[in-house]
């Protein structure tokens, strides 16, 4: 803690979309309160902090560090190791840091395929020379290095020890502020394994007000072809809502407005593999009757892996890496 009694705080953005940084601002006028209780010592997204400054701190100098995004390259790995050493409490903030998030879906493809898509195939790319980023390039002023690309997106816990995990894509602002306030007040211990906070200890179903009629799914639907009945459980209506296999905390935001839960808070409490959770549940819910119908219904699902593991592939049992096997 600083001499002025304020927390020393850091925020970092690795392999993620940046929404998490913005979500920190979503706390609204509480940002002024934040300024009252914390000094921001590192937040590259908002000001020009240098790694060297951080490296100069004593170990454990930062009280609190919000790290969002997974680890995709060597720079991110270096920074997370650095911040781990310099932070008393390291928080994996947001689903990318917690479970890999959307970027981890790339683990289903090899590095070659990813480069092919990003630097050649992508219709918005103009790369006639066929240039790809190289880790080392000889130039007139010497050797230039860029971070090395790793074959898989890793969640934070794969690389360093994490004290807390705040899931969500992005985490909900109210919960974020409460968490900061709790940590600032010393109400919670600084280390808690990788305990999940800022979320609910039950699944999204617990927060969802839609009525369960306890009927099985006769037919599967997708949003663009189907208007769900208001007030009735979306999963029972045949939309592949991930709510039952997703940790709560969002207040069932998507189901509330008629959209199926996509699973952004990661696996529900008690489970590690979100896909296994929903596959187990769908076994009980799909009203197939015959084997042929079962196979038909399963075949209708457009992208099971992308649907069931959209946010948590890096936490799945099989995880998958890119360069060996994976989806072609």
């Amino acid at each position, binding site marked *: 803690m600083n001499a002025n009694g304020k927390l020393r705080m850091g925020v970092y953005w690795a392999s993620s979309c940046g929404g998490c940084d913005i979500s920190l601002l979503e706390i609204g006028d509480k940002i002024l309160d934040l300024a009252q209780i914390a000094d921001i010592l590192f937040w590259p997204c908002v000001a020009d902090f240098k790694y060297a400054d951080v490296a100069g701190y004593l170990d454990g100098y930062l009280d609190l560090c919000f790290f969002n995004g997974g*680890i995709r390259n*060597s720079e991110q*790995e270096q920074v997370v*190791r650095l911040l781990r050493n310099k932070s008393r409490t390291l928080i994996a903030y947001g689903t990318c840091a917690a479970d890999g998030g959307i970027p981890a879906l790339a*683990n*289903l493809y*090899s*590095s*070659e395929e990813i*480069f092919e898509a990003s630097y050649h195939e992508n219709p918005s790319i103009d790369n006639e020379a066929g240039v790809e980023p190289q*880790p080392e390039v000889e130039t007139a002023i010497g050797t230039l290095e860029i971070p*090395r*690309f*790793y*074959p*898989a997106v*890793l969640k934070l816990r*794969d*690389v360093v020890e994490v004290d807390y995990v705040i899931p969500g894509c992005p985490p909900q602002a109210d919960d974020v502020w409460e968490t900061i306030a709790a940590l600032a007040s010393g109400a919670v211990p600084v280390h808690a394994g990788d305990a999940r906070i800022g979320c609910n200890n039950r699944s999204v179903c617990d927060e969802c007000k839609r009525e369960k009629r306890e009927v099985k799914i006769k037919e599967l639907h997708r949003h663009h072809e189907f208007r769900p009945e208001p007030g009735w459980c979306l999963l029972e209506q045949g939309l592949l809502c991930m709510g039952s296999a997703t940790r709560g905390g969002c207040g069932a935001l998507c189901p509330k407005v008629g959209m199926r839960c996509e699973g952004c808070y990661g696996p529900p409490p008690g*489970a*590690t*593999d979100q*896909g*296994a*959770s929903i*596959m*187990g549940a*769908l*076994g*009980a819910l*799909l009203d*197939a*009757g*015959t*084997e042929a119908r*079962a*196979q038909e*219904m*399963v*075949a209708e*699902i457009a992208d*099971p*892996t992308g649907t*069931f*593991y959209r946010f948590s592939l*890096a936490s*799945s*049992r*099989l*995880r*998958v*890496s*890119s*360069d*060996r*096997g*994976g*989806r*072609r």
Partner: protein
Amino acid sequence: MDATELRVEPALDTQTAWEPRIVGFLCLWCSYTGADNAGTARMKYAPNVDIVKVMCSGRIDPDLILTAFAKGADGVMVLGCHVGDCHYISGNHKTMVRMPLLRRVLEDFGIEPERFRHEWVSAAEGEKFSRLVSEMTEQVRELGPLDWKARLKECTGENLGPWGGEHP
């Protein structure tokens, strides 16, 4: 083909030779009893499938199968009562949905379809059981080791610093 014919004659280095490791999740009432049936009839089949018994194939959580692959199985078999003959009325109806679902996911993960087999074996079908086991063993033998543990190391950070992966 007789199962015994399929096996390679013991060579000097069999101590280190790779053998497929396959886990079979079997329901007690039909498939496990079917395996007993094969035993009682002294049918010979490949010794590579190790059985984990559950009361009903409906108990087989996809998580268990994923765990088996993650922890070193080269193949997984799931056997249950035929649809309509479930001791628990419709326990296997859940299996009938879960397994095709899991199969699609496993394919996306890059696990060859031959490594995962889901079949119905009744208590009387000892012959079918022994045939499936030998067939599956040969299929997996042809594919070679899955060795997911090594693959996992790459994406759990075990190899980090210095990073073991190659830059493309």
